[in-house]
């Protein structure tokens, strides 16, 4: 039986539309220094022996985007590896690296500056194959529009319910000090915002965001050296769907259901509807919050619209942080969700703290119309 892995520290920069005053190395340094301050960890042989970075060559416009990060990640004459995928996958890999017995103390630092590109849609446009789908002009936002249509057909969700999700997210976001640019939105403002990929309105989409996030993962036998309040990674799971959207039923949540099934099995969770005190899902677009909740098996299939109407998100403690909708970079969405969930479990969430939170779920998504999902189940130590 492999040993347990604990999250011993969590650090984030603020998330803003344009952190023009900081290069990405500086954002990462802020995260590293906070983790060092919280735990006293260093890069000696008994400290961090492996760093996992999260970044993206296209967003950074740098070949080998982690090459620029070597010094910040303490990787000079040390080990560093880059997750070039949804950020929550760094937890997945960090867990494996420690459970394999190869590492004891692993640093995770992810960064992304969406503001650097002229348009993030230009970046995600490049995820489409150059022969069939790229010439059509697809990007992740347009793909999400198609999925939102399919989901609206299935669940009956409409403009008003979607606006309700956005308004609640904005109300939560103003309590989150990591989101200094958040402001409360009204139903009227949301419903009057321009349509960008019908039925997705401008305010249904997460804002362009810059920021960095990090964690310290430690093997259970050494956790005490770094914290008294670890958060255990109980289970992880992910799944890839097919690529062409015409090959998929866009409202079926195929990959998410399978990812959840795997993660729940590893975490020993039988009844997901009642298992979680905190749920952080990557809702890049408003429709995704209820849809992903169905895929996670926390609410029944096709019941997302009713769940929104009955104030479900508040009752289930979904995205108390404001969620991805309130601002976190595409690439880091799931890792920020995991960070927020872990902060809650550690009892360090300040004004947004949920009392007695013991078990949490964090979710990340990547690719057109949710092609890839990854999940982590966390538990208070």
């Amino acid at each position: 039986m492999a040993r347990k892995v604990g999250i011993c520290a969590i650090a984030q920069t603020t998330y803003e539309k344009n952190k023009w005053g900081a290069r990405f190395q500086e954002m990462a340094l802020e995260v590293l220094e906070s983790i060092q301050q919280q735990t006293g960890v260093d890069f000696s042989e008994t400290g961090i022996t492996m760093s996992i970075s999260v970044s993206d060559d296209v967003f950074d416009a740098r070949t080998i985007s982690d090459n620029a990060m070597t010094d910040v990640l303490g990787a000079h004459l040390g080990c560093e590896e880059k997750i070039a995928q949804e950020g929550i996958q760094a937890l997945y890999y960090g867990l494996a690296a420690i459970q394999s017995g190869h590492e004891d103390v692993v640093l995770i630092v992810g960064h992304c500056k969406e503001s650097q590109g002229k348009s993030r849609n230009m970046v995600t446009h490049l995820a489409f194959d150059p022969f069939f789908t790229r010439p059509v002009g697809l990007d992740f936002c347009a793909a999400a529009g198609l999925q939102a249509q399919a989901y609206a057909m299935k669940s009956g969700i409409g403009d008003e319910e979607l606006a309700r999700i956005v308004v609640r997210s904005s109300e939560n976001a103003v309590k989150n000090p990591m989101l200094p640019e958040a402001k409360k939105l009204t139903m009227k403002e949301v419903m009057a915002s321009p349509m960008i990929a019908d039925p997705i309105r401008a305010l249904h989409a997460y804002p362009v965001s810059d920021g960095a996030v990090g964690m310290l993962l430690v093997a259970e036998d050494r956790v005490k050296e770094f914290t008294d309040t670890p958060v255990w990674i109980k289970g992880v799971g992910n799944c890839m769907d097919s690529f062409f959207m015409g090959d998929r039923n866009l409202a079926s949540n195929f990959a998410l259901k399978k990812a959840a099934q795997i993660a729940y099995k590893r975490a020993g969770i039988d009844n997901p509807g009642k298992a979680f005190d905190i749920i952080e899902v990557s809702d890049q677009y408003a429709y995704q919050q209820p849809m992903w909740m169905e895929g996670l098996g926390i609410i029944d299939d096709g019941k997302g619209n009713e769940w929104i109407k009955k104030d479900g998100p508040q009752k289930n403690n979904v995205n108390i942080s404001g969620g991805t909708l309130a601002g976190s970079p595409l690439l880091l969405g799931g890792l920020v969700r995991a960070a927020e969930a872990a902060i809650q479990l550690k009892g360090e969430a300040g004004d947004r703290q949920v009392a007695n939170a013991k078990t949490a779920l964090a979710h990340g998504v990547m690719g057109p119309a949710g092609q890839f999902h990854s999940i982590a189940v966390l538990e208070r130590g």
Partner: protein
Amino acid sequence: MKKNRNVGVIGVGQSKYSSHREEVNQPEMIHEAVVAALNHSGITLDDVDCIVHGNMELFEMVHQPDLWHTLGTGSYGKETLRVTTGGTTGATLVAVADQLVASGLHDVVMAIGFEKLQEGHTTGGITNMADPLWARQLQTGALTGMTAADVIEEFGEQRAKMASMKYRIIMDKHAMKNDKAHRRLGLEFDQAEDLAKNSPALVGELRMIHMCSQSDGACVMIFASEEKAKQFCKQPAWIKDHVTVHREESFCIFGEPDYVTSHRYAAEKLFGRNGITDPLNQIDMFEMYDPSSWWGLDWIREFLMLEGDSHIKMIENGDICIDGKFPINPSGGVTASNPIGATAMVRVAEAALQIMGDAGEHQIPKPVNQAMASGFGGTMWTVLFLLTKDVPW
């Protein structure tokens, strides 16, 4: 360093390497290697739990390419992980797969490295690695003549040039035995003088003939837990240990008096924790990521922790030949084939094939019980592997 459980390589698949694979798109090219690896291991896609994928995305300008490549990788409905570290990517993928299996998360993992350099601008892509403010003016893609100048200064022009060219010709002779290799030139040792003088110069004494190719291709490896490996495979190649060492990017701007290469640093660590005191006798073969024959020559000294000119003598005496005392790159190495995101994995894969006894025409004609393989990338980054024929623990 004892792992949670043993991990064995049970299958290797490679596409044909070439400068232009115009008849296939990226997923199709990958699929070629996936099918080859499944056939080699005798398992089916249903037996694979997780697929690990990597390359360098700015070469082809596809964002998160694992999404599209699902069509060729077979990752539909499976768990996946995408990890990239530049030139070392392929070796990093092996380290990742090893840890995914050793951790107990998965029993069977397939790792996929690929590149289709024809679809982008390789030197432009590599130059884009350097810091836009401080270093981009200095970066010349992967071309560096510095090592050639250093070796010439240390050993004299004639000896250095002849050793480097002999290294290159040995590699070509090895590539001639490997039907996957991209460049198979049919060079003979009596061409050395002529090539050293007349091959087009790139930077100083780094000439076209010394430099690695730009290739299209994919490499796939399948890893399994001890139990599954023994079930599926007669002779798995066991991953005993690996060490990853990076260097800070501007290491040479301000000079550094006591310069330890990441290669020697990694070797010291790997040998130290695996009881290797005499690498030349304890290790039976070495697959080295040799981006040019100048680097290949110079790095033998670093990886084997040699001093003086013993590495030059190894080349002059033909020790590194496939039938020599210490064979290096019986596959032909990187000067023969270089699909970058796959290249470092090909090194580990070729070392594994030697242990499994499945290298075909380029199988070393002596027993291979312990093999070493290296990946290279970034700003002198190293991933170094030790593979064994016997189960490590």
